[in-house]
């Protein structure tokens, strides 16, 4: 028994320490998250990270709940006649959460390191709209290669340091950014970008607290890269380093437990901030988050669409049994990509290289049946690609509607018939997420529609990483795909089919289409430009069909509108905690 005594004392201490662990008072607004990669706005890329970036930081401009651009750190801007030069006027009242003023150079210095390959910012293209931005990235990449080619260790380190020392001058020389004074930024663009105000409001262009980060920047001896130690993001460093300029400041971050933010007293628009404090609790999956919402653990559950019983939630709402369910279109489209390359990756001829075969496939799918009876989420079916209603002034063209007669006529036009069977149609999709149901339904539809043509769908499910490798290698005939836009302009969707686009898994290449996009890019008049883009999209979804669009993704948020209000239902789905209003129950 004596042997057990130390064990008992130890266990007692552990339980005691657990009991002393008093939870903080509940935040005014409590919500949940599944996975957050980083709170560094410059390298954020997942929607949950981006949501937090907008709570902690603010760009030159910002967004309201209808996704209109509204002034942020800048109170106004001027646009030159050639639509290439934007002058932003920063408000003097903008402050960092430590009281320091937000200056023009905070932005430009952040943009300089944001253009380096060193921290591999995933949305670096947003900064490369600026004239010379891409050249600066190229310069930095080349110099890094030169550095790493040096064999001698000491020499290499000196060269790495020299590269970093040369950066500001190089940036100043080739990148179109000027700061005439502390509160003015002049940005010259590579070409006119009608939606640049939105880019200026986006997280990749947020300022970093350079007055604290500068000291934490180091040249990594192994790779020669200029890195900032991610430790700067921790809220309890001494002296504090996690300084932000947005509506909130970071109060606590416990890994995989909770993120807590409190209103930033130095925020220029502090009076407009809704909740005094926001807590995001971590859940292992959407199901756990749903349970937490249901038992009152969180006030609002965002994006619960992945829960297995989402169709039942939607049904309950449609039957009028629940009024806390808010469903709306996302800024993304669910589709099947057709391989348009002449041969498959194993050298076999690709029957879908023939446009008639692709048109036939597109017309043989009953999309309404899929959203009503297969996914059962009643998403909006679509034959167009760009989300409808999300981009003001842009009318998404309709593509090829469900029409079996026309589909079979196209199949005949493609040269198939009783004498010449189509043979196997290789369909690939990734496992999970309900994709198998959709794939099976489509396989059945195609099989039945083209029975007389000897078309035999063969479905293959793969784990995501294997799937994605295979899809980008073009080793398929049709493959599941989904595309979410990055900015509110049709080009974020239509660029996907540009020759050589890195995400163009269909392998689609059409000089006529490329010329159409190029012409639109040269057009300054917004109405005319959208006209040209609508024509380009119609060419894709009516004539060329590198993809078969199925439906728009759907978002389901859960909240009692009498408890939490001012929640956005715009397809861009940018939820700003600062704009939400909490009414005590």
């Amino acid at each position, binding site marked *: 028994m004596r042997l057990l005594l130390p064990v008992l004392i130890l266990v007692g201490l552990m339980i005691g320490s657990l009991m002393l662990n008093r939870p903080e008072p509940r935040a005014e607004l409590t919500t949940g998250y599944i996975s957050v990669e980083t709170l560094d706005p410059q390298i954020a890329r997942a929607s949950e990270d981006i949501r937090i970036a907008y709570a902690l930081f603010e760009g030159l401009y910002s967004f309201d709940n209808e996704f209109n651009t509204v002034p942020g750190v800048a109170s106004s801007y001027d646009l030159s006649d050639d639509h290439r030069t934007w002058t932003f006027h920063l408000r003097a009242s903008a402050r960092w959460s430590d009281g320091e003023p937000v200056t023009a150079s905070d932005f430009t210095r952040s943009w300089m390191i944001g253009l380096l390959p060193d921290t591999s910012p995933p949305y*670096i293209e947003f900064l490369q709209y600026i004239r010379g931005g891409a050249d600066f990235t190229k310069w930095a990449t080349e110099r890094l290669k030169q550095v790493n080619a040096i064999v001698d260790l000491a020499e290499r380190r000196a060269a790495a340091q020299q590269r970093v020392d040369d950066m500001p001058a190089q940036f100043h020389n080739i990148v179109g950014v000027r700061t005439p004074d502390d509160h003015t930024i002049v940005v010259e663009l590579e070409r006119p970008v009608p939606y640049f105000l939105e880019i200026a409001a986006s997280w990749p262009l947020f300022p970093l607290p350079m007055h604290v980060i500068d000291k934490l920047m180091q040249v990594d001896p192994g790779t020669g890269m200029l890195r900032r130690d991610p430790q700067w993001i921790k809220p309890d460093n001494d002296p504090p380093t996690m300084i932000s300029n947005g509506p909130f400041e970071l109060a606590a971050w416990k890994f995989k437990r909770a993120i807590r933010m409190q209103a930033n007293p130095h925020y220029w628009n502090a009076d407009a901030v809704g909740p005094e404090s926001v807590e995001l609790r971590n859940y*292992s999956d959407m199901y756990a988050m749903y349970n937490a919402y249901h038992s009152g653990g969180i006030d609002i559950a965002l994006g619960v669409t992945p829960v297995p019983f989402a169709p039942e939630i939607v049904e309950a709402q449609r039957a009028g049994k629940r009024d806390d369910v808010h469903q709306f279109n996302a800024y993304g489209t669910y589709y099947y990509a057709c391989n348009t390359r002449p041969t498959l990756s194993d050298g076999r001829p690709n029957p879908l290289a023939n446009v008639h075969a692709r048109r036939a496939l597109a017309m043989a799918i009953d999309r309404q049946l899929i959203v009503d009876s297969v996914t059962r989420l009643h998403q909006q079916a679509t034959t167009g690609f760009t989300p409808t209603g999300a981009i003001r002034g842009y009318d998404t063209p309709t593509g090829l509607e469900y029409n079996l007669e026309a589909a079979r006529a196209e199949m005949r036009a493609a040269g198939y018939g009783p004498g010449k069977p189509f043979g196997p149609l290789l369909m690939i999709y990734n496992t999970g997420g309900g994709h198998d149901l959709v794939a099976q339904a489509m396989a059945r539809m195609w099989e039945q529609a083209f029975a007389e043509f000897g078309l035999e769908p063969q479905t293959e499910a793969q784990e995501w990483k294997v799937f994605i490798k295979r899809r980008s290698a073009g080793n398929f005939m049709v493959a599941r795909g989904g595309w979410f836009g990055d900015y509110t302009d049709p080009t974020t969707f239509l660029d996907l089919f540009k020759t050589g686009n890195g995400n163009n898994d269909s392998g689609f290449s059409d000089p006529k289409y490329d010329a159409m996009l190029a012409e639109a890019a040269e057009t300054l008049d917004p109405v005319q430009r959208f006209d040209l883009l609508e024509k380009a999209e119609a060419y894709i979804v009516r004539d060329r069909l590198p993809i078969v669009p199925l439906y728009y993704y759907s978002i389901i948020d859960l909240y009692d509108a009498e408890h939490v209000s001012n929640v956005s239902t715009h397809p861009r789905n940018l939820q700003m905690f600062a704009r939400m209003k909490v009414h005590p129950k």
Partner: protein
Amino acid sequence: MTRLIFWRLVQLPLLLLVIYTITFLLAWVMPGNPLLLDETRRPPPEIEEAMLAQYNLDDPVTFYFQYLRDATGVGYLARRLEGESIPPHAEVFNLGPSLKYKDWRVSEIIGDALPVSIQLGAAAILVALITGVAAGVAGAVWRDSIIDTATLSIVLIGISLPTFVTGAVLLVIFCLNLQWLPLGWGTPAQLILPTLTLSLPFAAYIARLTRLGMIDVLGSDFVRTARAKGLAPRRVVLKHALKVAFLPVLSFLGPAAAAAMTGSFVIEQVFNIPGMGQHFVDAVLNKDLFLIMGVVLTFSSLLIVFNLLVDIAYGLVDPRIEM
């Protein structure tokens, strides 16, 4: 004894090196780029290249040796000796960053999760010990009575039902339907269900060991003598008999403690507890190389040390065991 400890300590790094090499090889050949997100877009190619280069993910040989240098503290020492400037938050034993959770170091993640798993495991073993021994003694003293049958049935359930079943059932009843106990981690109330679930198989095993041992001992000569001396029955059972009957339980406790502290993955998943279990699964799914390595190495070291401690404890308790 000292020789055993010495050799085990010599073996430890070698064993870890082998484990590291195997883990590294397995993790490296997994398909996919750990730095790319599952859905949507891919960054420009030069950024994708830089992503890999910044963690040496473009070259397995460099990665293998760089990690070895950093994790063992050789890298830090070398930088110190060369008189280089050391960044303010640098670590001596650098287990690397998490590739998925970019703001966190592997050491922070493990430092955060390991105590949780240990707390849960320790609480479970404590509960298992108390309930198991009590049930075993009761079963042996009132043999073939209703109490005995009841404890035997529960023991059977505890041993045969996997914890993810008992855990899920308890969760549905007490958390979701009755809403008596909250989910999650941090308050004593949240400790109750996972502890119970995790302790059940151990309690069942301990109860069986105690019951068998007690039945054996209660029939032995020295107990009869104690009874004949007129000692109170409670004293005979608890002081004299239990002391002997407890020995097999003690030898079970070592491996059980290791198993409880390392084997709570399933329960952590069921009850949404931020312990080590989730990282094992997550790290592999995300191909988070540094985290995979860190978690595997931590667990291997723990298991090796636990086994060593158990062997030492055996030697202390039972002098017949030759060291």
